């Protein structure tokens, strides 16, 4: 797989053909129209540093292309997923190789040279599984809501910035991380996701984490004060968490069997036993995956990504439960899992 960029372009062609029906003549569908009037006055948006809002304003200024922009951002995110997954697969392979080498005592200089050579060759070989992960991210049906629903521009742009923060050199990673948080409240997990995927990096990278943490605290102290609707759920803390866990199980089921998709899932008629079991089942699954972290490190990494990306849904008690477009960023973890299966 010597030309990943060409394969990615082919995948983009497939994505454009799949999303073709929404690219022409489709107006606002099931939109929260709160932003529709605001995007025509971009000047007032300047202080918010909300890149999704800016991109919608740009569409308004250009006179259209709202859905096409969503699809193009989705394609761009597919490439970032490819870069991230290849890096993580290579990191896992290197860790395994080092563990094996250190088990035989300190490696000699020739062995180290050979290992570095092998690492370069392995980087080439990891391109195919990383492309499979990229394809999974781009083509999975659960992504349709995030891509086709214009109000999900925030999901798309904040995920672009999250992924950029994960793969870029540290000054750019810092900027991307802060912009992800100013674009969407749920991107506050960027600090934890960076520790997850860059935690073993050089110390220069680690300077990003405290800087992002301080930024997150400053931004959210301001944002939560301005958006009281974020805490308007009629449920108490425990029942809210239990129902949110039910929603997460439903979304994970849709990832495995993507049939029965709807814009409005029925969280009212959920049986009591499902609400009672959802959190214990979720915690049990986490413990089980944690126990296997040594033998299945990529499964552990994927599970951590999915859960961390969904964690804000438990913290912020919004009057809505997880819906399909909220799975956009967590799908990076699913793509990583699919990519790890694609290794020879």
């Amino acid at each position, binding site marked *: 797989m010597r030309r990943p960029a060409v394969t990615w372009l082919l995948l983009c062609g497939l994505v454009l053909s799949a999303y073709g029906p*929404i690219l022409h003549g489709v107006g606002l*569908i099931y939109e929260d129209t709160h932003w529709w009037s605001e995007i025509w006055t971009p000047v007032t948006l300047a202080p918010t540093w909300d890149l999704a809002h800016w991109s919608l304003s740009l569409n308004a200024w250009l006179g259209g292309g709202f859905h096409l922009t969503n699809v193009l951002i989705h394609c761009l995110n597919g490439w970032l997923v490819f870069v991230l997954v290849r890096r993580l697969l290579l990191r896992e392979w290197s860790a395994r190789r080092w563990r094996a080498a250190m088990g035989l005592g300190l490696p000699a200089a020739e062995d180290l040279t050979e290992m570095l050579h092998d690492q370069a060759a392995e980087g080439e070989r990891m391109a195919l599984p990383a492309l499979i992960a990229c394809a999974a991210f781009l083509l999975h049906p659960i992504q349709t809501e995030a891509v086709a629903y214009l109000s999900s521009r925030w999901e798309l742009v904040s995920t672009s910035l999250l992924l950029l923060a994960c793969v870029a050199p540290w000054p750019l990673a810092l900027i991307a991380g802060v912009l992800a948080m100013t674009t969407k409240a749920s991107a506050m997990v960027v600090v934890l996701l960076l520790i997850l995927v860059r935690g073993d990096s050089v110390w220069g990278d680690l300077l990003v984490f405290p800087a992002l943490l301080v930024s997150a605290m400053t931004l959210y102290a301001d944002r939560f004060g301005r958006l009281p609707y974020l805490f308007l759920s009629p449920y108490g803390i425990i029942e809210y968490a239990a129902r949110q866990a039910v929603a997460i199980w439903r979304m994970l089921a849709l990832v495995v069997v993507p049939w029965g998709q709807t814009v*409005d899932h029925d969280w009212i*008629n959920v049986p009591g036993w499902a609400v009672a079991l959802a959190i214990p089942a979720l915690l049990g699954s986490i413990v089980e995956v944690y126990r296997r972290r040594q033998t299945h490190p990529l499964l552990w990494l994927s599970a951590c990504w999915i859960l961390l990306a969904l964690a804000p849904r438990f913290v912020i008690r919004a009057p809505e439960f997880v819906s399909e477009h909220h799975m956009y960023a967590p799908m990076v973890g699913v793509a990583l899992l699919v990519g790890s299966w694609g290794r020879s």
Partner: protein
Amino acid sequence: MKRAGLILLLAVWLVLTRHRVEDWTSNLRLWRSAVRVTPCLPRVHANLSLALRPIDPIASSRELATAKAIAEEHQCVVLR
């Protein structure tokens, strides 16, 4: 073999994605598909009623009546 299976899986996902995208081409199609999946949710009937109103007022009224009936049965709110 494993990779062939994955490629087949990706092809199935592509077809399903295309199928689902068709639902996002109009409010009417979107809410019709929602009613098929979650028929016991009053809100989807109410939103289908809104989508039907300009083209089929009678069907719109019927959907609204269904939404109200389900809402009364479950004592919940009809509209978002």
